[in-house]
């Protein structure tokens, strides 16, 4: 049995010395188990009768050679090397009576089993791939006839949905109707009542706008309020309750409560 430093012969076709490619070689294997299996195959015997001891020694020599050359070896190879070194010692030393530990032969058998199982799975993979495969040697209908799918819509709606839809659109119409009828219009009567209330005891000339502005919250109502207020104020002037004054065309309109006759005294000839 050989224990010389030998390297797997997978890369010799590159024409380079195997040692130069050691790291590459390790990369070429799928882990330490793959490397062991490759080394085992070189024993050219049935895997069931493989010498695990010599396999372990080959692996250790391989790793040692790499370390001598200071080449980086992946950690799992080093772990395997350590385990194989342990296995070697168990195989070479007589078993102790201590039964807690598996014997060297049991450990070796376990490793042999793993190698055989990996080999078996490789064989299975190639047998599988060599079968007549669909799309490679065996074919499905090239132009399958699509099944025509007739879709039926199954509509769903609850009674609540229905009633809610009816109620909300009817309501929408009510609101529309109400908005139109409730459009804010200052009637003359309203404007007059407002003016009387607002002018109150004021006797100074005041622009009519300032009386109204606080009440004219929206631009839409402004025009109608102004128009009604002007009409109402003219009426109040005619009735002698207030006085109006405008200095020029389009300038602010001033309003004041008409002074009481008794308080104006002698100059009451207006």
């Amino acid at each position, binding site marked *: 049995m050989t224990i010389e430093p030998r390297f797997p012969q997978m890369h010799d076709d590159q024409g380079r010395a195997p040692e130069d490619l050691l790291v590459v070689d390790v990369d070429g294997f799928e882990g330490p188990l793959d490397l062991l299996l490759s080394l085992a195959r070189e024993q050219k015997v049935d895997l069931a009768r493989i010498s695990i001891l010599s396999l372990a020694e080959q692996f250790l020599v391989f790793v040692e050679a790499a370390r001598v050359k200071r080449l980086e070896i992946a950690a799992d190879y080093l772990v395997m090397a350590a385990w194989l070194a342990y296995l070697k010692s168990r195989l070479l030393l007589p078993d102790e009576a201590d039964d807690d530990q598996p014997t060297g032969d049991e450990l070796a058998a376990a490793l042999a089993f793993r190698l055989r199982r990996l080999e078996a799975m490789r064989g299975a993979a190639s047998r599988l791939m060599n079968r007549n495969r669909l799309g490679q040697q065996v*074919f*499905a209908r090239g*132009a399958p*006839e*699509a099944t025509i799918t007739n879709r*039926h819509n199954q509509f769903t*709606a609850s009674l609540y949905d229905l009633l809610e839809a*009816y109620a909300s659109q*009817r309501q929408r119409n009510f609101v529309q109707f109400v908005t139109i009828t409730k459009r804010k219009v200052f009637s003359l009567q309203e404007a007059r009542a407002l003016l009387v209330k607002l002018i109150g005891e004021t006797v100074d000339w005041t622009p009519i706008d300032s009386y109204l502005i606080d009440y004219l919250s929206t631009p839409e109502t402004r025009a109608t309020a102004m128009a009604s207020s002007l009409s109402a104020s003219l009426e109040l002037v005619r009735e002698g309750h207030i006085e109006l004054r405008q200095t020029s065309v389009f300038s602010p309109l001033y309003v004041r409560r008409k002074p009481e006759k008794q308080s104006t005294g002698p100059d009451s000839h207006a």
Partner: protein
Amino acid sequence: MPDLFLATAGDNVMNLAPEDQRLQLRMVEALLFAAREPLSEAELGARLPDGVDIVALLKELQSAYAGRGVTLRHTDGRWAFRTADDLGFLLQHEVSEEKRLSRAALETLSIIAYHQPVTRAEIEEIRGVSISRGTLDALMEAGWVRLRGRRKSPGRPVTYGTSPDFLDHFGLESIKDLPGLAELKGAGLLDATIPAGLASPDPDDRADLTEDEEPLDFGDLEEVEPLAGA
């Protein structure tokens, strides 16, 4: 024993030794089966051994498949297996999809329910928008709305109403069970004040036509579709 799939052999093919003939038929059969498109005689010939009488083989295969679930069709100089004409229905697959009614359809349905018999124009007047194509279609497809007749008024517009399925689907014993406006308000569905003078609608889904309706004309069912989409 019923010779269901028994071939009737063509003349030319008969001259071959059965073994060769059988292999050639199997080859043509496999080629046609796996082909993505119909194959011409030239294409088949290019893939078969030299000297094969392709037309004879195709004819034999065609007669072997005659009357079967799949037949060998010759169209435009090309050959392909196709499902037998009478079995096309098998390839149709019925699927029903749950679909929610659109908001527009729900509103239209509710107006039809409450105001039936009602014309399209009347529905639009109540909704304030025109009905889009497909809204009435969807309601008729759902089986909830039906054409009742025609209104005796200018233009004789079609009147719509609800179907017995409508009552069934919404769990109503009769159309009169639809709550009135006041009840809707009571249920919190309506919170605006109901304008005075607006009477609750009085829906009528009886099969008989009302006094201001007349029967649909013959052929109205076809005519209505484009109308509904106008």
